[in-house]
């Protein structure tokens, strides 16, 4: 997503290496995605579902 739009930055974070960050975002299972500190997505989702949730788009 980051490569497709200059407004987007994407970090892949090794959860066990950065425990403080994992605690901050209550990462109890992976993958867990946090978008703009507010949106939380648990697990891996199909592409469209993931993008819709990450971009906070209304449900179809």
């Amino acid at each position: 997503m980051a490569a497709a739009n200059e407004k987007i930055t994407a970090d892949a974070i090794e959860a066990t290496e950065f425990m403080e960050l994992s605690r901050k975002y209550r990462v109890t299972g992976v993958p867990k995605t946090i978008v703009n500190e507010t949106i939380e997505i648990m697990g891996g989702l199909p592409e469209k579902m993931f993008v819709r949730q990450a971009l906070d788009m209304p449900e179809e």
Partner: protein
Amino acid sequence: MGLLSPQDEATLKAHLSPITIPVQLVLFTQAFGGSESGDVAKEVLNEIASLNDKVTVVEKSFVLDTEDKAKYKVDKAPAIVILSDGIDTRMRMYGAPTGYEFVGLVEAIIVAGTGKIDLDPETMKWIQAVDKPTHIQVFSTPT
């Protein structure tokens, strides 16, 4: 001896072969007070770079290279900043890229090195319509 078996090396080399755009992997590590994962990250990146002459590794100090750290907005180490022909792709990896993280790194390198993003056209439209800063953090583990 490398991290990968000869067979895996051959597979990875083939996977990287479509790369036509130079990719720089800027690695920030902390020599003193840092974790061993910095050394692992360096080994992994060097192994990847050895399989494609368009992929290069640029090493930076998380402590001393403050200008670059600020430029790429790196706030923890080890960090991998992926550049496509010198341009920031805004993709970052934090921690040693092993296991599943290795797969993600390779895919990011291929995106940076080919300019091709393998997403559904409708999904691409949604992404390209984003007009406000959007920071995505994906937490995972190697296994």
